[in-house]
């Protein structure tokens, strides 16, 4: 943490510090609020929710909603719970994140260390893909996927996520590699390493921080995506679509406790990624992306 906890030269008085702590804790409570509401209510029986205070702790604790959301809740015609969809999401997210990160790293490498005439134009054009509203690409994307025979398949979904992810991953890696000394690449060239060898042996081993940023970003975006999943997921729909089916069911009693349990279950992987890798996040941002 040495690099991150580099202290400011600013010193503050006791009253100021108390005030600062107070503000920080208040905001922490604000950020935690929805998670608290979800957590608390997922542990209550249904009648306690409809009658009681949404902030109150359960008077009768129960894990039944969690069990139900995971394995017995009605998602489609089958009462499967979210379990099978979890696997669908994993099968889609892992390759999509890996591919888009690797491509982004290679692109960033080319755009900083193998510059050519017009490279900034190429990069600028690629970057704009980050800002395109996904709703507009739905129909043409369907045409393309249909032509490729990938409609309604996991590879199709991976393709879509990779395509709209490489703008961001390229941006991250480009900015990171920009501050990586070009002399190292030159030294490696003289040493006889080729294009891929330099990437593999010299750049990749030091790309940890930015890879974390890229993976976090891509993982959360892809995991949380609903629009592409519902449109191109076919029968291997991701977790978000299943959660939506669980929560949005048109008629019948709304089992809010199950909904909340399901929502937390669906969010668990992304939460985990943030908590585990979050400490590298600021470092990664520091190492380049903010400078973009």
């Amino acid at each position, binding site marked *: 943490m040495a690099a991150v906890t580099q202290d400011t030269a600013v010193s503050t008085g006791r009253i100021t510090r108390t005030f600062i702590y107070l503000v920080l804790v208040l905001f922490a409570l604000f950020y935690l609020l929805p998670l608290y509401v979800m957590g608390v209510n997922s542990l209550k029986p249904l009648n306690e929710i409809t009658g009681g205070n949404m902030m109150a702790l359960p008077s009768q604790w129960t894990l039944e909603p969690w069990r139900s959301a995971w394995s017995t809740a009605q998602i489609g015609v089958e009462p499967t719970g979210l379990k099978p969809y979890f696997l669908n999401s994993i099968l889609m997210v892992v390759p999509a994140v890996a591919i888009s990160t690797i491509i982004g790293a290679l692109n960033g490498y080319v755009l900083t260390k193998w510059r050519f005439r017009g490279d900034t134009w190429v990069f600028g054009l690629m970057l704009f893909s980050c800002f395109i509203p996904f709703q507009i690409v739905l129909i043409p994307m369907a045409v393309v996927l249909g032509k490729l025979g990938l409609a309604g398949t996991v590879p199709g979904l991976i393709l879509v996520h990779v395509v709209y992810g490489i703008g961001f991953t390229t941006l991250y890696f480009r900015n990171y590699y920009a501050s990586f000394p070009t002399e190292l690449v030159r*030294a490696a*060239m*003289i040493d006889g390493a080729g294009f891929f060898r330099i990437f593999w042996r*010299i750049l990749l081993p030091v790309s940890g921080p930015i890879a974390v940023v890229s993976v976090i970003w891509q993982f959360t975006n892809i995991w949380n995506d609903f629009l592409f999943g519902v449109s191109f997921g076919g029968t291997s729909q991701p977790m978000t679509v299943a959660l939506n089916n669980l929560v949005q069911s048109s008629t019948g009693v709304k089992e809010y406790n199950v909904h909340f349990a399901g929502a937390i279950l669906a969010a668990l992987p992304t939460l985990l990624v943030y908590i585990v890798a979050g400490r590298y996040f600021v470092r990664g941002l520091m190492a380049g992306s903010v400078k973009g």
Partner: protein
Amino acid sequence: MGFLDIRNVTKSYGPVQVLHRIDIAVEEGEFLVLVGPSGCGKSTLLNMIAGLEAITDGEIAIKGRVVNGVHPSKRNIAMVFQSYALYPNMTVGQNMTFGLEMHGVPKPERDRALADVAKLLQIETLLDRKPGQLSGGQRQRVAMGRALVRNPDVFLFDEPLSNLDAKLRVDMRTEIKKLHQKLKTTIVYVTHDQIEALTLSTRIAVMNKGHVQQLGTPKEIYDTPANLFVATFMGSPAMNIVPATVVMENGHPHAALTDADGGVHRLRFSQANLAAWEGKPILLGIRPEAITDPEGADRKSGNIQPFSNRVTVTEPAGSDTFVTMTLSGKDVIARMRADANVTPGQSFDFAINMEKAVAFDPATEARIPA
């Protein structure tokens, strides 16, 4: 034909030409220093020799083989970078043998080469460390070691000492010189530091604005600079340049100067052909060490001219005392013996060794040849 030939090489980025027809032949075992201010094109030239930048026109040959378009790794060169460019993820040993590994040299042979070089540079104890754990001087040695292990035809150094502190820089300079004398390798060395250039090289190419201003031995460069740029760039303190007019006296050309109080001095040139410049303005160039107190003047010189002038500032520097005065409206620095009795504001008798004086054409800034 030399060992390393740079023939009519130019470099352009689009319409901007950054190197103009560079032509240098380096002999085997020579230590060539490319020196010049930043942006003069010296690093670009070095990168072109290394193959890191394409050659726009002309050709570069190593041992008679034209290497234009040849991949850097196939030119049998090694390079030491300004930032050392040590791979941060590898140990010192791995760093040094990476190139051999890339060239498919078997492990036992790599280890042997590594051991030899590590011994030579006295870095045996560092081999298992990562570059991040090394001091600046150690990194410098490792970077050189990495180059030495390869046993290349040509060593390229890109400002290798500029990241070191002053003391270490002097030590390493000596070390490089020793290494060169011991190994007799061919070296091309880029620096912006003229002292490095003068101390290390067997030959110097002074560059400015994409042109080689002068190519020659350190002595040639120092004593007979080709033009005003070389004269002022090389040497510290820089050569004094004073506007003067050539006048004839007793059949000899003299430089007419005015001192701080408006008095006119005539100093006789040793260079007879300046008679042709009679009545014309020139720029007189005199190195500080050629202006001394009379006792400190060079006894071997046949042309010591005395004159007196008022002193503005004195700067004792231990071994010498630097004295500033005004001549023809310019600040001029003289180098005295440490014990010379000089007081600011007082007039003092100086001796100028006019054998060392050079004259420049104010229009072309080129030296007027003898």
